[in-house]
C-alpha cells in the first residue's frame, strides 16, 4: 500500500506556540442516535470510549471521540486501524439507522502547544479561550479566519485542531502567522 501523506507533510513551526502537523490519523464520521444504547455500545467496542457529552472530547490511547453535533461524532484511531474500526461499527450497528465513513484523508489534523496556544487560537476564532471559559476536554467547532475548524484542549494544555484537508495549508499558515514571535498580546496573562 502507498504511504499516506498529509497535506502538511510534517510541517512544524515554533513561535509563541508550536504549530505542527499531527500526521496521518484515522478519522471516522459516525452519525446516528447518540442517545441509543446501540451507538453507545458500538463506540465503546470500536474505540473503547463513551459517548462524549455535548461539545465535549474524550481521549483515549491513540483514540478520541468528539461531539460534532446532536447526531454526529468524529472518532479517531490510528490511521491503519480505520478499516477494522469501521467494520466493528458496521457489525455492532447492523439494522440501526446510522452512517460510519472514513474521512481520514479529507481532513487535516494539527497540534497547537506551548504558552501562547490559547492566544494564537483566540486571534483567529470568535471563541472565548480564557482558561475560565475553555477548559480541557471541551470541544468546539467554529470559524478560523475564513474556514470552519474544530478543536479540543487536552489536560496537558495542547490544542488538537481539525479542518478540511483542502484548506490545511491555509490553516497552518494562519496559525503560523498568529504565532510569530513578537506577536504576543498577553491577554491571558
Amino acid at each position, binding site marked *: 500500500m502507498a504511504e499516506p501523506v498529509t497535506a502538511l507533510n510534517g510541517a512544524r513551526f515554533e513561535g509563541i506556540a508550536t504549530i505542527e502537523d499531527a500526521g496521518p490519523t484515522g478519522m471516522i464520521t459516525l452519525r446516528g442516535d447518540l442517545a441509543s444504547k446501540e451507538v453507545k455500545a458500538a463506540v465503546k467496542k470500536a474505540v473503547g470510549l463513551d459517548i462524549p457529552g455535548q461539545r465535549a472530547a474524550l481521549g483515549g490511547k491513540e483514540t478520541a471521540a468528539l461531539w460534532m*453535533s446532536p447526531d*454526529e461524532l468524529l472518532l479517531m484511531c490510528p490511521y491503519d486501524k480505520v478499516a477494522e474500526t469501521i467494520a466493528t461499527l458496521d457489525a455492532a450497528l447492523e439494522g440501526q439507522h446510522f452512517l460510519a465513513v472514513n474521512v481520514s484523508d479529507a481532513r487535516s489534523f494539527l497540534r497547537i502547544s506551548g504558552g501562547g496556544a490559547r492566544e494564537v487560537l483566540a486571534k483567529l476564532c470568535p471563541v472565548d479561550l480564557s482558561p475560565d471559559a475553555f477548559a480541557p476536554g471541551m470541544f*468546539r467547532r467554529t470559524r478560523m479566519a475564513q474556514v470552519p475548524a474544530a478543536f479540543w484542549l487536552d489536560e496537558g494544555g495542547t490544542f488538537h485542531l481539525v479542518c478540511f484537508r483542502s484548506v490545511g495549508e491555509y490553516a497552518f499558515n494562519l496559525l503560523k502567522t498568529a504565532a510569530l514571535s513578537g506577536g504576543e498580546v498577553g491577554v491571558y496573562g
Partner: protein
Amino acid sequence: MLILTCPCCGVTAEETEFHQGGEAHLTRHGPGASEEEFHTYLFAKENPKGVHFERWRHNNGCGKWFHAARDTVTLEVYGTYSAQTLEPPQVIRDAITAKRPGWRWREFA
C-alpha cells in the same frame, strides 16, 4: 454584530459563526398551487423595522438550522428556537412582548 445562541449545540457566538437563511415560517406552496401563491412564497417577504423572524444555520459549528427572533433596529436577539416548528413558541413571543408590547409580525402577535 449579533450574538446568537444555537439551540442545537448550545454555543453562543457572534454572527460570523452562523449564516442567515432568509425569512422564517414561510409556507411553501407546492404542486397545484396557484401562480399567486407561488409568487407570494417566492417574493412577498417581510421587511420590518423592529421585530423579525429569521432562519439561521450554524454553518461553522454543528451545521444545524434553527430559528431566531430579533429586532432589526436594535439588533437585540429575543431568542432562538428549534427549526422543527411552524410558529414561534410562546416563550419567544412572551420575551418579545416583554420588550415590545403590542408587536405584530405576519399572523403572529
